[in-house]
């Protein structure tokens, strides 16, 4: 049998050059697209750091806004807002993570090709399109109906945020569960492991790192929400640790409030200069807003780190 004439398929020099040109062109285009995508990110980070670093100190992190007037010393801080953001986001997680994961488990493991599957899927899609302000209004009116008008506390905020988190968690968990190989499930069944146990010990365990990243994404989506929390959790200048009673300021609401009020007016005859009694800083609200924005970014970064750590620690060890 004659060997085929491979030389016939050899690329000509000109076609090689054309390929290289196309390769180069596409490479340049893709790098350019990458750079364009990175510019806003770097710009946001740079601006926030440059503006935020002026007020970013220990005092700022450990004090609230009670007793702070205009541009006068003391200049206040964000302790109350940081506490509020952490507690409200944690509350939202407690509501939406179990609900989201269990919904995803039902969708992937139990309801395939049933009519309920389609219905739930459809409503999850609808939910992910709900504007955040509507979620805030929903939570506010629901609690107003149940607990009387004007019920505003941290937990109402958590409820509002959980509405925004659930679809994200369901979708990402669903993706993760469906890529767990069927072989693993079948192997478990073959050993006589019941279905529920297989899901908990094999499927969820395998998909854990992906589920955790999904949860982190969901948190990152809601932690910067302003509008729903403005309605549902309100704002107050003192520190409130109780999620279930009293208003709670969160970082985005804090930033919004500070920016909204603009320049602080100084009493006649007050000195301008460095931090001391009687010294007035007209631009203090902007400085506080930037520093709080910086804290918010750092907070998301830390949560991201914790999430990755959790995923790593619990990940299935493979050799």
């Amino acid at each position, binding site marked *: 049998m004659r060997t085929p004439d491979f030389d016939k398929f050899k690329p000509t020099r000109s076609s090689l050059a054309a390929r290289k040109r196309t390769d180069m062109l596409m490479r340049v285009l893709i790098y350019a697209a990458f750079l364009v995508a990175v510019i806003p990110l770097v710009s946001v980070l740079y601006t926030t750091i440059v503006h935020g670093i002026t007020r970013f100190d220990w005092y700022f992190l*450990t*004090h*609230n*806004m*009670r*007793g*702070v*007037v*205009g541009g*006068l*010393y*003391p200049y*206040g*801080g964000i*302790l*109350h807002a940081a506490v509020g953001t952490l507690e409200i986001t944690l509350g939202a997680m407690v509501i939406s993570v179990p609900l989201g994961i269990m919904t995803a488990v039902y969708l992937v493991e139990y309801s395939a090709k049933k009519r309920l599957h389609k219905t739930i899927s459809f409503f999850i899609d609808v939910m992910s399109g709900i504007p955040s302000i509507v979620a805030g209004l929903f939570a506010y009116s629901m609690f*107003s109906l149940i607990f*009387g*008008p*004007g019920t*505003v506390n941290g937990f109402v905020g958590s409820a509002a945020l959980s509405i925004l988190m659930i679809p994200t968690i369901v979708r990402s968990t669903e993706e993760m569960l469906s890529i767990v190989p069927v072989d693993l499930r079948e192997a478990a069944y073959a050993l006589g492991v019941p279905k529920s146990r297989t899901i908990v010990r094999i499927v969820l365990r395998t998909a854990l790192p992906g589920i955790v990243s999904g949860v982190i994404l969901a948190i990152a989506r809601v932690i910067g929400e302003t509008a729903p929390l403005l309605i549902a959790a*309100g*704002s*107050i*200048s*003192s*520190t*409130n*640790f109780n999620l279930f*009673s*009293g*208003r709670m300021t969160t970082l985005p609401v804090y930033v919004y*409030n500070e*920016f*909204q*009020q*603009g*320049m*602080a*007016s*100084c*009493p*006649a005859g007050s000195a301008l200069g460095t931090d001391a*009694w*009687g010294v007035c800083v*007209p631009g203090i609200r902007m400085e506080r807003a930037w520093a709080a924005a910086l804290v918010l970014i750092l907070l998301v970064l830390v949560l991201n780190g914790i999430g990755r*750590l959790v995923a*790593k*620690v619990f990940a299935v*060890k493979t*050799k």
Partner: protein
Amino acid sequence: MRLSHNDHSECVQSAQPWRRILRTVLVGTSASVLLCGLAACGDNTPSPSLTQSSAQAQGSYTEKLSGEFAAAGASSQKSAVDALIVGYSALQPNIAMSYDPSGSGAGVNTFLTGAVAWAGSDASLSDEQIQSSQAVCLGSTAFEIPVYVSPIAVAYNLSDYGLNDSSVHMSPSTIAKIFTGKITSWDDPQLKKENPDIADKLPSLEITPVWRSDKSGTTKTFQTYLHHTAPNDWTSEPSETWPNSLGQGAKGTPAVTMTIGQAQGTLGYADFAQVSGLGTVAVGVGSDYVAPSPEATAKLIDESAASSDSLGADGRFVIDVNYATQESGVYPIALVSYDIACPVYKDARTATYTKQWLTYALSDAGQKISQDNAGSAPIPQSLREKMLPVIDSITAASSGTAAKN
């Protein structure tokens, strides 16, 4: 066999740092909560000037309150209310108070549902609102008292031409013509005529009007002023939205002042307290030109209150601002913002709080704090004395102290 052994040891190793982290987090959190105490966590020590002025008023606030109190309403009052909260909290250290700047309309609606103790509003109550207030005020009707008066400055930026310190003179009709596009340049003959001293310095530069793009009581006040003083040049009906799209719109007072500051030849209107660094127009009153100041605005309120017919009827103190005043030394553009409250409250705690709060807002200490920190104009003493009896008569329907806020 060896493989599984390895797996096992790795598992143990990786579980340990995890437990350690968890423990550190738990210990750290509980320690910081313990260190903090509870409500006082992170509170600032207020400025001594503030606590001194409040300490003098200590006597009137003998009944101590605790817990959270909420109010809502006009965003214009926010800075003043924030300053007042600090002063009042110095007298009542165990309360936490919030003011939600949701806007006049939203604030009054929230008040009418009974969710907040009082509301701030840039507009007086309508008859319909008075009617519906009977539900929340237990049969009596709500009243309003002016607590916050803010001069509205017509601000410009001509810093490159060294004119930001020398208040450019403008008559009401000139202002109206600029905002309707009939005068478009800073060296317009009309402007030169009104400013003989600086006529040569006025640049040949286009005037860019800057206005509020959101609904605002400031916009309505400014338009009402033009409507009263230059009816021929300002023909649109005053409303909370700006009627034309000449120049540049900006959302919120800070954005307006920022927009004015960023370009040369801009002209806009904003609360006087917010316009530091910009030039302010001295507006024509009679044959005179008056620059904005809290004192000149206080005169306006004094004069307007004297000429308001139904002032104080049913406890309602609605001031018809006399924009078209001809008095010398009176600055004619001012936003009057009211606090709306009930004469009767369901529970004693809210009644006491509202009474104390309004008394504090109208006290010398309260007026000074709001003037120093929000740039508001003081409410004339005579008017305040008329309002105090109405505040003093706030009562509670029941004597119970346990109640919702």
